[in-house]
């Protein structure tokens, strides 16, 4: 009977190498799967009447947000608290930063005050990398300029994974202002790493240069929304910043709506079990019709719920004893 027995699973040591979470471009498939597995366990904790475990007791987590954000900051704060960590929220507009204290100085102060993990959201791409260079604490990037939003992409991936356990070969479409979107960039990295085909759909003026070249992950470009949506398993719509019209990248919001709004009719071109994503906050009636946003295929609320569990998983995985 030996030959037909499948090899049973043996517990292996997890291969987590990250001291910081800055972007998804250096996450392996195995690491993303480890995040999924850990998130599942965290979700179970969130289903309990007492949502608390003592795991990060004694650890201090600071959120340092240079850009306003309700949901992301709250998500991180709750994640940290559910793990019993101490949380401090710094709103950069009211602290000494407003008086001209530089990012480096602020980080130095936080380090001296004993922060173990610093969650940073910053309007300039690359700011968390400067932080990571100059500080011992772990840095979690909660969004830097146009560049990356790794925790968002991970929660998007996890939400997809909950619905479709086998991700390989799925088709994802991202619609919207790719050029200025850190959510799009991180998702492109994450989706392609998991073997998912990515199609980008947007007006050419909102498409960054160089996609399709070697150093970047492989993506398809399709400016026509109907063609882009054909056979899609995952549809992600991005928020359209109204300033884009002011800076001349779009002739009008009206035209954007005509060409790129995700409506029920357009969504019908995707697979019948396709899922609709949005990183929030949603401009209903602009990038997505209210019917679709609240419709049966929308997983927007699940994304938010999963956000806390994913962030709990990441905070847990980050707090090791020794720096790798």
């Amino acid at each position, binding site marked *: 009977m030996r030959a037909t*027995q499948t*090899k*049973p*699973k*043996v*517990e292996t*040591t*997890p291969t*987590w190498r990250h001291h910081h979470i800055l972007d998804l471009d250096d996450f392996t498939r195995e690491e993303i799967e*480890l995040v999924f*597995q*850990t998130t*599942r*366990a*965290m979700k*179970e*904790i969130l289903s*309990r*009447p*007492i949502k*608390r*475990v*003592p*795991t990060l007791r*004694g650890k201090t987590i600071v959120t340092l947000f240079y850009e306003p954000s309700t949901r992301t900051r709250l998500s991180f704060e709750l994640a940290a608290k559910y*793990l019993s960590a101490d949380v401090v929220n710094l709103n950069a507009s009211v602290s000494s930063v407003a008086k001209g204290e530089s990012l480096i100085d602020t980080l130095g102060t936080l380090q001296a005050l004993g922060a173990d993990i610093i969650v940073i959201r910053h309007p300039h791409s690359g700011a968390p990398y400067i932080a990571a260079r100059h500080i011992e604490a772990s840095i979690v990037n909660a969004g830097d300029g146009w560049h990356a939003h790794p925790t968002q992409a991970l929660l998007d991936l996890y939400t997809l994974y909950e619905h479709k356990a086998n991700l390989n070969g799925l088709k994802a479409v991202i619609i919207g202002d790719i050029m200025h979107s850190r959510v799009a960039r991180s998702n492109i990295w994450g989706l392609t790493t998991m073997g998912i085909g990515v199609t980008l759909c947007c007006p050419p003026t909102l498409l960054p240069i160089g996609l399709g070249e070697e150093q970047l992950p492989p993506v398809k470009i399709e400016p026509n929304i109907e063609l882009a949506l054909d056979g899609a398993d995952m549809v992600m719509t991005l928020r359209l910043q109204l300033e884009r019209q002011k800076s001349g990248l779009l002739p009008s919001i009206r035209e954007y709506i005509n060409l790129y709004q995700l409506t029920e009719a357009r969504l019908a071109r995707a697979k019948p079990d396709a899922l609709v994503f949005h990183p929030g906050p949603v401009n209903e009636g602009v990038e997505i019709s209210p019917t679709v946003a609240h419709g049966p295929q929308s997983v927007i609320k699940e994304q938010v719920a999963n956000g806390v569990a994913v962030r709990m*998983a990441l905070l*847990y*995985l980050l*707090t*090791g*004893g*020794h720096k*790798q």
Partner: protein
Amino acid sequence: MSRKVVMTEEDIKRTLARIAHEIVEQNKSIADLILVGVHTRGAPLARRLADNIESFAQTKIPVGTLDISLYRDDLPSLELKPVVKLTDIPAVDGKSIVLVDDVLYTGRSTRAAMDALIDLGRPKAIQLAVLIDRGHRELPIRADYVGKNIPSSRHEEIKVKLKETDGADEVAIIPAPVKEGQ
């Protein structure tokens, strides 16, 4: 490295059968019983105990699994975090829980498991069943049901293998690796 097998597949089978009978004997009403296996190897052991009880007492005992990674007291010193597995336990309020684990050593895992259970609700009682008790307790913890007592030195490793996780049933002692120059 010469390993010494202290329990064969047959030994383990008989021991689990004996523990299953002891559990039924000690618990007046097995209607309130839940067997909770502590990941990793406690889980299949709990399953086997439940199957045993069902076969001679004709009662299906609910089985749960418990991951204690998040309750460990040594997390800050671990370089790589343990992989967190799923905790899946039916409601614990008012129930008698028998925690099932493969090896009882310092007692810290059991302490973590109890904290986890209490975070889930208020069990009527918690008992502990282990396949092996190897001594060297660091906390005031004792097992209610013990498969085999194996006094061991701190340098030795007790390796439990189960079919469900390792492909075979066996308990072996592996002596400490010989140091250079000895």
